[in-house]
């Protein structure tokens, strides 16, 4: 290979003397901290990468919900002469739903502690309990919807009801899909044990389940509490 490959690199070496301070070209960045995937210490561990990626996903999911919250805020009063939020709220039922979901989250957290202690029996028991409480939540919500439909309160009635069923329904759908995921997690823990990738998935599932709780708190306050008092 002749000397005319790498023209720019050779030129730079030749001209170095002209720019001793390497203006606009000083090294940036502080020293790296090893093992964190931060500050350039090399790729992070698989566990950190998986957890981090899942957090990013959750943020995007929160934005999805934010859109439905926004439509609810916009269409709250677009009742088209139909029922208002006040006519919808059945406080005791909503309280029961909230209780079921929060307890389910609690059970989920305990199951994660059990998994960290590598206790299969308790992990499974608590995961199943998580699922049953989630199921109770979904069942109560479905019953609520069916009851409303019986009174002619359906999304087709008005913009407001569309936004209401859309927001609450989206959350219910998330809980349902989370339940399906939970069922496969139980099976995986049963047959595969606490292998690293199963632990990663349990971490993600926990994050998901707790995030759904947080969203529900938003729905509970903004849709139901504020609706009942409006």
């Amino acid at each position, binding site marked *: 290979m002749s000397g005319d490959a790498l023209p720019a690199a050779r030129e730079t070496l030749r001209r170095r003397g002209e720019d001793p301070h390497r203006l606009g070209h000083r090294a*940036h960045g502080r020293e*790296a901290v090893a093992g964190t995937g931060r500050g350039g210490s*090399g790729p992070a561990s698989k566990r950190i990468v998986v957890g*981090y990626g899942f957090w990013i996903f959750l943020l995007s999911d929160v934005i999805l919900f934010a859109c439905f919250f926004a439509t609810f805020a916009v269409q709250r009063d677009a009742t088209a002469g139909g029922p208002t939020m006040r006519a919808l709220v059945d406080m005791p039922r909503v309280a029961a739903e909230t209780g079921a979901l929060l307890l389910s989250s609690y059970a989920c957290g305990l199951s994660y502690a059990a998994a960290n202690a590598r206790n299969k029996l308790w992990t499974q028991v608590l995961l199943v309990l998580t699922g049953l409480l989630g199921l109770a939540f979904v069942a109560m919500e479905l019953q609520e919807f069916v009851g409303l439909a019986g009174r002619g309160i359906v999304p*087709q009635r*008005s913009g407001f009801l569309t936004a209401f*069923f859309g927001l609450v329904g989206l959350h219910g759908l998330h809980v349902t899909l989370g339940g*399906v995921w939970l069922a496969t997690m139980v099976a*995986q823990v049963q047959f595969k044990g606490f292998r690293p990738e199963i632990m990663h998935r349990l971490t993600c599932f926990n994050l998901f389940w707790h995030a759904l709780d947080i969203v529900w708190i938003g729905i509970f306050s903004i849709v139901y509490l504020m609706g009942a008092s409006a």
Partner: protein
Amino acid sequence: MFGKLTWSAIPFDQPIPLITSIVLILVILGVLALVTVRGWWGMLWREWITSVDHKRIGIMYGLLGVVMLVRGFADAVMMRSQQAFAVGAHRGYLAPEHYDQIFSAHGTIMIFFAAMPLVIGFMNFVTPLQLGVRDVAFPTLNSVSFWLTASGALLVNISLFVGEFARTGWLPYPPLSESAYSPGVGVDYYLWAIQISGIGTLMTGINFVTTVLKLRCPGMSYLRMPMFCWTTLASSLLIVAVFPILSATLAMLSLDRVFGWHYFTSDAGGNPMMFMNLIWAWGHPEVYILVLPAFGIFSEVFSTFSGKPLFGYRSMVAATLFICIVAMMTWLHHFFTMGSGPAVNTAFGISTSVIAVGTGVKIYNWIFTMYGGRVRMTVPMLWSLGFIFTFVIGGMTGVLLAVPPADFLVHNSMFLVAHFHNVIVGGVVFALFAGLDYWFPKAFGFRLHEGWGKAAFWLAFIGFWVTFVPLYWLGMLGMTRRLQHVWIPEWGPLLDWSLAGVAILVAGAAAQVIMLVVSIRQRDRRRDTTGDPWDGRSLEWATPSPPPFFNFAQLPDVEGEEAYWTIKLRALESQRLDPEPHYQAVEMPVNSAVGFFTAFFATVTGFSLIWHIWWLAGLGLLGAFVGFVFFAWRDVHEFHVPAEEVARADRARRAARTALLGERGAEAAAS
């Protein structure tokens, strides 16, 4: 049984779509036959379809994007010729309902299935190499993303033959897009195609945010990352922030259409303006999702071919992040005329103009990068210079549109059409061609033909201006967009000029094809044996061309910005490479068919939802679920590349590098 699907969905009575579809089907059958005859199926399946290698996935994205670019360009040629012919008493050759489908398909395909896949393709191919790592954060998910995008593209193209496409433009504004006014399946094709590919894009965003933030080689701190990695990060952050809005909006419109809900209807408390706000809260950031990586490509090109570090690197990073944030605060400029009132319009007019400041910083930085450098006028450099000229003008017409009173005059006119093509073609498409020429040797191991590349540039550059200057003019004269027929004969000549420009663009496209054919035939002469054909500065040029599937035998240890440049200068000065590392086995993810199967079931589900074949949709979802569980059940996720294989590959690379150091280095290598 088959929902709304009947034989009448096939356009037997419309020659244009019918013939196009038949030709398309024949081409596809021909390709399939060729693959079968040559016995390539096994290779295709193992090395491409199930591949989770970011470089292969990047190349597949590129291929998809190029094919769709051609399809979209064919639509453009039809629209321009229809408008040139259908003036006054003449009717042209496209019926209104057909013309409406063409402009809708053109915009949809160009943005979602040409520009996006090409941009994401570059992100895939380049980013991990520049970061000095072996793959993205979630390789299998990456494959799922690609195949979902392909599934969306397939659905749009099926609409050509089965049913119809939307007539509502690339953003289906309600109430027109509601079932009351668009009862056919066109809008449903749009909705499900974009919904499916949008989910793929969202996962790409998540993947690349995680990759850039968590997977960098040792020493690669944030402010040492190449500019392209920064723009990948910014673009991916925008994807994560706004693609959920797109999903939500399209889901709402689907609920309206399928179940008669009232999100955006004009009766019963529905609110069409809510759609405008939601869709543009996604739509404006979307243009920056496209153009930020394009800026990244130009940054790499300017710095490499000026032989200088990027001028004002830190201000470039700041400008990128500034644009990333402000991009989310300007959406209302798309509907100044829809009654938000002077106060709101003023606020958004200002925020829109402010974005130009960030872009201006970048333009100056690129110019100063060239200043004092020894500029090499290669093909990528030509595209980049053409970009500066074109984009500055497109940006200025954009700032003009950002002034609400001025916008009232030219909103939804041909002026607007000229503006956004000015920035999308001059910004994104030019960048894609620059990047193609720049990274092609890295991907395929040989350089593209310079002469034909330059011809392609000049034809595209001139053709672009001849096409779109008349459109600016027509917009000023008052011609609105999306006209299937033009009543005013004085507009005829300008429309003819525009058509002439398209002819030049067709010649440019032909030059690109010839460039590819000639280069492929001369590939043995054009081989890049060094891995560093352009005298580059970032880590992708430290690998051989094409790179081994594990990219780096040993992850580089970065000591400053311009990682590879530092290594190269040291080697050149001492006429010796850094000492040979102690090679170790490398762990790589195994191939996976989950992406392909997910996309298969997504296509089936999407198609059945479009035609209301509910049982099949259920079956499709079930299939996808079973596929996921099957995937989750795998026991083997990784395989080991033995240390000897790694060593063999890297010693070959080192030999080529040593030869590159110059005569003295070559002698040392020989002895």
